[in-house]
């Protein structure tokens, strides 16, 4: 019987799991499969400093080049795993090779949601998920070029912020009536719409994309509302989907993601899962979550590694996220879904620094902090404690952040 741990997927969770498996004392063989040509790298900078050309591959690559070899990890880049055979306890790769495992870690991540409209396959229509995507988009970075961004979420707005600074004419089309509608209160949406307008980005909300037109390459985006937006390049950012197919086909329990418990165990005791692909319990919110974040990938990578090494390290933390656009650092602690009251601290209508506290029946569940590190740091702590806060005190800036909990 094999004692090898096989990791499928080579992103942030996988890199963390390798490091943590060794730190947890696992000395057996580890084999890592990734379908990209690169060793694990950080994705968040791809739509920020990396897209802007401020940093290169050496700064997004997570580990030193010799890390995997020196950690005793056999690596298979550009290799797609096509099947998990749980009865035989092996996995199969695209070329039909079988690799036996003792235990398995699914770190399959997520992929972009694709847009299914006429002209979707025209040259010049891009997504942003991988290093290669960024390289393709950067080829269009010529002053005066026209870019249409489809989707006013984090990725779309970050791309818009980088592109407009490069002298590109940018229009963002969003289906909802405001940007970032899925994740923030209208106060925050309208703030971002104002700043993007100040920076020269055109945002149009309530616009559905009906198709892309062009002869050999994209020349225009056509909307369902009858609009036509001439362009040289399109970047589509309309969300991501968890890669759960391998797990589902192997008969593992899959819900909104691959179902795991607080130890990252799937419905098969020999298989763990970590990162974007999982649906996992969260004790602070009392229900299961699927998160698209680095923090989640790192922490679940640690938890899964502990479990695989025979230890217990339950995962139960306040999720957090960040987004950099222009001089705005948005830090989000917690999840605001289901809030009953949004309380603003600071002035979102002028300037560029404020925070929104989300309360559910008086209990703090999340904070969006824009250039407000103190509020963010405090919120991480208070959300974990399920603190009950007084809205009047939150709004009163003469009361210090540390005194908010009263």
């Amino acid at each position, binding site marked *: 019987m094999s004692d090898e741990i096989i990791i499928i997927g080579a992103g942030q969770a996988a890199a963390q799991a390798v490091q943590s498996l060794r730190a947890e004392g696992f000395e057996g063989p580890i084999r890592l499969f990734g379908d990209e040509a690169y060793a694990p790298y950080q994705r968040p900078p791809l739509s920020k400093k990396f897209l802007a050309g401020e940093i290169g591959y050496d700064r997004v690559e997570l580990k*030193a080049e010799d890390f995997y070899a020196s950690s005793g990890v056999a690596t298979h880049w550009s290799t797609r795993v096509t099947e998990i055979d749980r009865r035989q306890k092996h996995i199969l790769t695209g070329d039909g090779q079988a690799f036996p495992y003792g235990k398995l870690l699914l770190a399959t991540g997520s992929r972009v949601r694709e847009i299914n409209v006429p002209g979707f396959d025209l040259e010049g229509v891009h997504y942003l998920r991988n290093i290669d995507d960024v390289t393709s988009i950067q080829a269009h970075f010529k002053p005066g070029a026209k870019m249409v961004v489809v989707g006013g979420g984090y990725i779309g707005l970050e791309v818009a912020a980088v592109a407009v600074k490069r002298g590109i004419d940018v229009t963002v089309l969003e289906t909802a009536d405001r940007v970032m509608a899925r994740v923030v209160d209208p106060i925050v949406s309208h703030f971002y719409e104002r700043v993007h307008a100040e920076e020269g980005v055109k945002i149009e909300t309530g616009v559905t994309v009906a198709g892309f037109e062009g002869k050999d390459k994209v020349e225009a985006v056509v909307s369902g509302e009858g609009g036509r937006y001439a362009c040289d390049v399109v970047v589509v950012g309309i969300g991501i989907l968890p890669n759960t197919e391998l797990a589902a086909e192997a008969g593992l329990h899959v819900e909104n993601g691959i179902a795991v418990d607080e130890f990252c165990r799937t419905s098969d005791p020999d298989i763990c899962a970590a990162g974007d692909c999982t649906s996992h319990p969260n004790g602070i919110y009392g229900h299961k979550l699927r998160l698209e974040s*680095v923090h989640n990938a790192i922490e679940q990578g640690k938890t899964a590694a502990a479990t695989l090494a025979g230890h217990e390290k339950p995962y139960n933390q306040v999720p957090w996220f960040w987004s950099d656009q222009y001089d705005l650092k948005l830090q989000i602690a917690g999840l605001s879904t289901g809030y009953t009251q949004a309380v603003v601290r600071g002035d979102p209508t002028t300037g560029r620094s404020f925070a929104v506290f989300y309360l559910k029946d008086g209990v703090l569940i999340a904070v969006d902090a824009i250039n407000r590190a103190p509020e963010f740091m405090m919120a991480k702590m208070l959300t974990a404690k399920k603190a009950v806060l007084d809205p009047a005190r939150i709004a009163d800036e003469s009361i210090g952040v540390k005194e908010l909990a009263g």
Partner: protein
Amino acid sequence: MAKITYIEHDGKEHTLDVADGMTLMEAAVKASVPGIDGDCGGACACATCMVFVPEEWWDKIPAKEDMEETMLEFAENAEANSRLSCQIKAAPAIDGMRVSMPKSQH
């Protein structure tokens, strides 16, 4: 280049050669020094790369900017000599510096 020694909470030491211009966080993450996560990759957004810098080195590294200052003011386990290692770049002036890490940070 600077030789930097990272000391884990339990006293275990890791000495790395850090290239000029590279941050102490990046070097630690790439070399898998336990105790430095650097979740945000150096965006000064997470405070998971905190180190304690002995006083004799304070004037050899740049002073804290506002963002780092406030992140540290509210970070768990922070002390007067805490710094975010993503904000410290290696340079010949800090060759030989020894920094230590808190018990945990996330």
